[in-house]
């Protein structure tokens, strides 16, 4: 795993670096509040944020299903859309990992696009690790969350990008927040993209175990940094009737709590 590589030629003016937000398809479709939370956090970290309209998805469904041709087409589309930015940031370790670790591999044989894929990969980061490691954010000021919180480490962020300490560091500065470590926090929740619908029985076993571990922490809130995992865990917790509020870590860090937790309505 590469260490976080700051882009070598960022020309940061007085107005801060230009960041292209890779919203991710699941945030775009299911939970826009995570996108707005990311924008707020990036602005707190002194960035100018833009959101290219020509983005759709990072291409993982195709890439992980063995459809390299479609995955490569989508990768080229993403690269073209994000080429002009100092940094590209995604509120997801999985999608950031796709851009950073897998686009260069996917386009390695394409002489035109391979250098462009590397160029993008070098400047792409997962949101929370970007705030801490690249922007040097030490904490969030004036943010409050009254609750006992537990945190799940999503696999790609953890193992491809080394996202582990950064969210805990920032959460530690949220007033009123009490962190209960989740036993087995590094064990996969069973989402796995198309895995969860291709092998639903296994996925259910894994997320069932995870839901039990979450409930056992006694925390009233469960956070993670990837929408896929969050939808999976929230869906299981609510099916099991567990009273745990599930949110993306960015919502809590940005203090954007207007939306009800994932899988709950305004009344519940």
């Amino acid at each position: 795993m590469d260490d976080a590589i700051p882009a070598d030629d960022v020309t940061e003016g007085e107005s801060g670096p230009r960041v292209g937000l890779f919203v991710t398809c699941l945030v775009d479709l299911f939970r826009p509040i995570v996108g707005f939370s990311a924008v707020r956090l990036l602005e707190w970290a002194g960035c100018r944020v833009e959101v290219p309209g020509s983005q759709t998805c990072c291409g993982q469904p195709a890439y992980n299903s063995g459809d390299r041709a479609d995955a490569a087409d989508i990768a080229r589309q993403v690269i073209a859309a994000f080429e002009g930015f100092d940094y590209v940031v995604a509120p997801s370790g999985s999608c950031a990992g796709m851009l950073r670790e897998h686009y260069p591999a996917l386009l390695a044989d394409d002489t035109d696009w391979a250098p462009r894929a590397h160029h993008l990969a070098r400047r792409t980061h997962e949101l929370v690790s970007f705030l801490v490691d690249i922007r040097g954010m030490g904490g969030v000021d004036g943010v409050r969350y009254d609750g006992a919180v537990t945190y799940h480490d999503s696999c790609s962020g953890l193992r491809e990008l080394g996202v582990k300490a950064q969210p805990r560091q920032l959460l530690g500065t949220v007033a009123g927040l009490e962190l209960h470590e989740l036993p087995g926090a590094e064990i996969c929740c069973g989402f796995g993209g198309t895995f969860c619908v291709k092998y639903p029985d296994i996925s259910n076993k894994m997320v069932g175990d995870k839901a039990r571990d979450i409930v056992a922490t006694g925390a009233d809130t469960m956070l993670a940094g990837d929408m896929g995992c969050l939808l999976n865990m929230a869906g299981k917790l609510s099916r099991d009737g567990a009273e745990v509020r599930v949110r993306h870590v960015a919502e809590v860090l940005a203090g954007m709590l207007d939306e009800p937790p994932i899988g709950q309505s305004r009344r519940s």
Partner: protein
Amino acid sequence: MQPTSLAFKDRARDAVTDAQLQRALLNMKPGFQQRRAATVAKLPEFEALRDQARDIKNHTLANLDTYLLRFEERVVANGGQVHWARTGREACEAIAEICRRAGARTVTKGKSMVAEEIGLNDHLEAEGFTPIETDLGEYIIQLRHEAPSHIIAPALHLVKQQIADTFREAHTDLEADRPLSEPRQLTDEARAMLRRSFLSADVGITGANFLVAETGQTVIVTNEGNGDLTQCLPRIHIVISSIEKAVPTLEDCSAILRLLARSATGQEFSAYTTFSTGPKRAEDLDGPDEFHVVLLDNGRSAVLGTEAEDTLRCIRCGACMNHCPVYGSVGGHAYGWVVPGPIGAALDPALIGLDQARHLPNASTFCGRCETVCPMKIPLTKIMRHWRVKEFESGLAPASVRRGLSLWAWAAKRPRLYRFGTRLAMRMLGLLGRRRGRIGWLPLSGGWTRFRDMPAPQGRTFQDQWAAASRQDSGGR
């Protein structure tokens, strides 16, 4: 062993609801993981050793012909014989022929996954010999006529009570009401039964963890001592090994040995590490009169130079399966072949064919935990992804998957259309789930909603809201 990997999905479904299996799996998980973590933490150079071990094996595989020929030369110089087998069938026949010439009846066996791979016991039985497994786990599953469910703990899928029942059924000459509730009672009984076999065996068969080219030695790593009795007491010792077990030197062997037990059981070293150097010499007190090594290819040489070559570095420690949440959910039998878990998902398609093994590389979330513990640094998820590409390109992927994927990709490559379509769809889903915040059932989403709710989307997509906010911004200025 006949692969049954095509039934993976059905077996997995049965496995997750099998209470006894789940109890057995629950017993194994924390033990293996914690012991490995503790012993690795005590060895500062563990990471450096992983690199060294990877390099040793890569070098060996790049020069495999040289090292195998050198190994053969040394075995012969030590007074032993080498038999080359292209297929499992050839290996079985070579072994049966040695047993026939020796006039053997009882054949004891140490644990060997290669012997399981080639169905050696069935072959020997059909030829009129009586093979007896002497590793405790293998002994138990032999009595139960089962395949191993884990490469280092073949009976891992069983709980104590099942083993007691098996022993009562098999050992009919013992008192029917003897106590068998304690592990100690079970092992004592197995030991007493096996002692008879060790003494009566004409041929002993073991596997090999390593073949040392410079010395012609075969090496086994065990904890029960059964391997030593298997190879020392009978007149003939046969080693069955696949060709990728070769290492150039004793130095190389000991470097990898430092990783093996730590990764497997969390021991610093296993109880026994046994080096076999040919038959008994004039000055030796004991040992076999004949020493044979059967070198099995069975598809491995065809894996050299392919994208799956790195799987040939595997030293069969089992760390990947011990840490795999999928293996931990379904156990080894679901995989339907002798090597289960992540390494099976990467290796089995190469050895039994992708058409047979197509589920295995798909049944992974790519969580990557296996790669972080693999002592040989095998890029397991990369190889699984390679098989998915092969499957997709060769049309083996199910039509429904291909259709869904191509429709999605078609839309994802047309951002304007995608935005329009998703805006409508999310509005509808948002309305559908507005009251409860979640959706309990959706057409075509049974894989998800059978077990989980679908959290409802907020309703307006991010892109929709962002575009509206930007319009307002520029309008306000």
